[in-house]
């Protein structure tokens, strides 16, 4: 089998350039520390006659409803820091096209 040196070189260069193109530096993921004494499970003792009409789970959605917070938060040290702000999502189709 003949090995085409030129093709191998082109492949190597393209792989290296792709890696360099994508590389953005160091990535670090930090998770919030858990409560010190976390109970395994919530045990809810229902009083007689009490009815649980439904259960829902909190979540995050790309389509968040925009409701104003009229009350000043208890403590928001993060929000008082410079260069810290809520993420602003843009609708699809706005801005430059991604070229992957």
């Amino acid at each position, binding site marked *: 089998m003949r090995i085409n040196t030129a093709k191998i070189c082109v492949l190597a260069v393209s792989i290296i350039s792709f890696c360099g193109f*994508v590389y*953005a*530096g*160091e*990535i*670090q*993921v*930090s*998770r*919030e*520390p*858990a*409560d010190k*004494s*976390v*109970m*395994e*499970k*919530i045990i*809810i003792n229902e009083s007689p006659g*009490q*009815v*649980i*009409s*439904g*259960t*829902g*789970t*909190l*979540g*995050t959605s*790309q389509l*968040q*409803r925009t*409701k*104003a*917070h*009229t*009350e000043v*938060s*208890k*403590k928001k040290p*993060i929000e008082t*820091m410079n*260069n*810290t*702000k*809520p*993420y*602003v*999502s*843009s*609708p*699809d*189709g*706005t*801005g*430059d*096209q991604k070229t*992957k």
Partner: protein
Amino acid sequence: MSRIIARVFFVLFLFSLLIACGSGGGGGGAAPPAGGGGGGTQYGTIRLSNVSGVTIDEFYISLASSSAWGSDQLGSSTLSSGFYFDVANVPVGTYDARAIVLGALSIYHGDLYGFSVTANSTYNIVAGSGSFTGSIKIVNNTVGANIVALYVSPSSSPTWGSSQISSTIGPSGFQHLYYMPTGSYDVKVVWNVGPDTLSYGNTISSLSLLTLYVN
């Protein structure tokens, strides 16, 4: 004499009846409900069960039709993981809820929209470890270049959207973005010199801060 004593007892009886009526209802909430019958407004309870592993600092509920979250139901207290908190005497209707965690690294929220509160029953909202938004922090890791534009958009989106910064970020500076729905995001950094930096498929997790050092 006995007639006077009888009158005094009668007045005392009326007075105690008045007090009993005034303190009716139950719990410890604000305005006591009118009870099950009577034909007035009916009430239910909203319960926030925290199994997230972290402390919830704020809890908001408001009618789905309302444009504001209103006041923090937790007041000056917080809700540790493993515990629940009841908001009693909630008029029946369709509600939205938001819980906020003011973490050591960032701030996060979890939402539930359009759930129904029915009469004389409890709606249970569960806040789990995956219920909250995440955050990203982009750090300029160069010694002499400025970030002039920063784009962060969901990987599913074909476009970059608008820039997340309004002023340039110098060397060692950063931009911290919070309240990001969890998922995969692409990041594009535009420098004042040199080519753009692109980073695809960065995972934003609940209650986590992703720090990206770009150069």
